[in-house]
């Protein structure tokens, strides 16, 4: 990936091509780089993140949520909770955002070839896995069984609803979707229960399997013991950390967990790596 500019803080300009409201407060933007050369040369790996700017308001950090195998655009998905995300949310199709990246490490997808994959996600944390899920589906024959366990508080809190339906309809993916007790409507066709419980019931085999887990801290906390019980080694479990960042370049000094800079050494870590860090995230 080229950094065409000497000014590492200068973003590329991108146009909002489409907007999808995933939930009442979570939005997906599909972005197309304005500079044709950037559009052609921009590549990234699943798991990497970028800094997205709403000019006049600042930058915010999210993963690149689209698949590296789909070129010509990138997508990001965010909840409007702060100054920048609210400003991004106010932008309309055709308007300009800034994008710096891609930054950070990525899922070592080559090491997953020939193995079964279990994706476990909660709420707004599906996007960092969705990029990888689509890449794996685009390269379907390189992987064994693929299981996706995804849950949210309520039906309306599930993101990528159309894609969930698509995955459900495919014969080569096992999708287990769930909502918290009380979050289900009359037509809900998934499970009811918290992600760790539903994962335990789904009981994917740990044999030759990689688990990829993204979710709120409390979900991760209760999911890791379940995976352990199912026989997953800490080295076979991957997750991403989402610390507050500003530069994304390992300089501004705020995303570190111990001596690990999430922006450069992460955001993708194995459970073994996370357990070795000071518990300050």
């Amino acid at each position, binding site marked *: 990936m080229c950094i065409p500019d000497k000014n*590492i803080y200068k973003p590329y300009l991108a146009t909002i091509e489409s907007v999808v409201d995933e939930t009442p407060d979570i939005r997906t933007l599909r972005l197309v780089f304005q500079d044709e050369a950037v559009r052609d040369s921009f590549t990234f790996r699943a798991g990497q993140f970028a800094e997205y700017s709403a000019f006049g308001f600042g930058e*915010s950090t999210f993963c690149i949520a689209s698949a590296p195998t789909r070129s010509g655009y990138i997508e990001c998905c965010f909840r409007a909770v702060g100054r920048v995300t609210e400003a991004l949310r106010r932008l309309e199709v055709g308007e*300009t955002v800034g994008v710096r990246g891609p930054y950070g490490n990525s899922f070592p997808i080559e090491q997953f070839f020939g193995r079964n994959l279990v994706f476990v996600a909660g709420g707004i944390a599906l996007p960092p896995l969705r990029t990888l899920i689509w890449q794996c589906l685009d390269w379907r024959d390189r992987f064994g069984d693929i299981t996706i366990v995804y849950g949210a508080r309520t039906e309306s809190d599930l993101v990528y609803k159309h894609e969930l339906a698509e995955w459900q309809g495919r014969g080569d993916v096992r999708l287990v979707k769930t909502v918290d007790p009380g979050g289900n409507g009359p037509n809900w066709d998934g499970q009811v229960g918290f992600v760790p419980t539903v994962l335990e019931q789904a009981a994917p085999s740990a044999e030759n399997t990689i688990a990829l887990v993204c979710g709120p801290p409390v979900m991760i906390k209760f999911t890791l013991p379940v995976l352990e019980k199912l026989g997953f080694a800490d080295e076979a479990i991957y997750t991403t950390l989402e610390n507050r960042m500003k*530069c994304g370049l390992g300089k501004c000094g*705020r995303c570190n967990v111990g*001596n690990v800079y999430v922006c*450069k050494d992460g955001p993708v870590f194995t459970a073994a790596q996370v357990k070795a860090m000071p518990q300050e995230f």
Partner: protein
Amino acid sequence: MAKTLSLDNLHRLVDALLQEGVRVVGPKRTGTLTVYAPLTRGEELELNELPRRSAKETFFPPCETILSFEKRDGRTTVSDPDLDRLPETVLIGVRPCDAAAPGILDAVFSWDYDDPFFLERRKRTTIIGIACTSSDDACFCTAVGLTPDARQGSDLFLVPVEGGGFAVEALDAKGSALKERHAALFTAGGNTVPLPLAEPKVEPLDLEKIRAWLDGNFEHPLWKEIADRCAGCGACAFLCPACHCFDIVDEGGEGSGCRRKHWDACGFGKFTMHASAHNPRDVQPQRYRNRIMHKFKYYRDKFGQTLCTGCGRCIRWCPVGIDIKAVLDEINKKS
């Protein structure tokens, strides 16, 4: 033969550089305090006092514009400052604790991604260091591997000598070039007996042992003991020659404005707070621990250097009297 430079000629050197269009920055008295500031003539140079803020701002200013943006007729354009127009600078009268710091910071500003704002200024700046002949009980350079006459970071070095004036030593090509360009101001010979150095009277520290102790004591009652009193301001970080944390903010309006990088501090409560209000460093002792860890462990782990030069500013100006040297002494005793 060793060269010497009289104080008058040092002032003339500043004047000559200014005349050439070089920006000269040095300790200067402004109102009640001395700070590193652009000089307008040699006589403004104030060598008897350690400036209140460190020399890092010559390379890493408190605030700088990293780009500007404008929205017009539905189009957004972004332009960035022309770094080629950064002036050639001579930073003069820099004590060893300040001179060493920019070189230590090169590591973080150049790993993988080169921060051009810092590095371009580094490239264009010549540092004239000066041996230190006055210290106070907050100074502790000798405990962190420096000395009052450490050459580290200087391109040209001045040692105050008996009878006034300085013995001059060029340490690299930049320093030699400057000396050659103004050869007439430097005298061959003269008294080169150095004035007594200001050796801080402090307990030595074993930085490797301290690093090892920090490695095993992320959780320790010491952090609460020391830092419950921490008021959570940024005075220590902002005066520090080596603290490099910054924030990036957009200022101005939606229609046009600037994106700026400005000093930030890990002591601030909001430093690591997520938009969701989750805060990995929720209480002050966690923030102070990060400060010590960053300086004496993380930076050593990553870059093999200590992020502290013992200038003592954080000790002199901590509103609640936290003394980093006392903290290190305590850890040194434990390890």
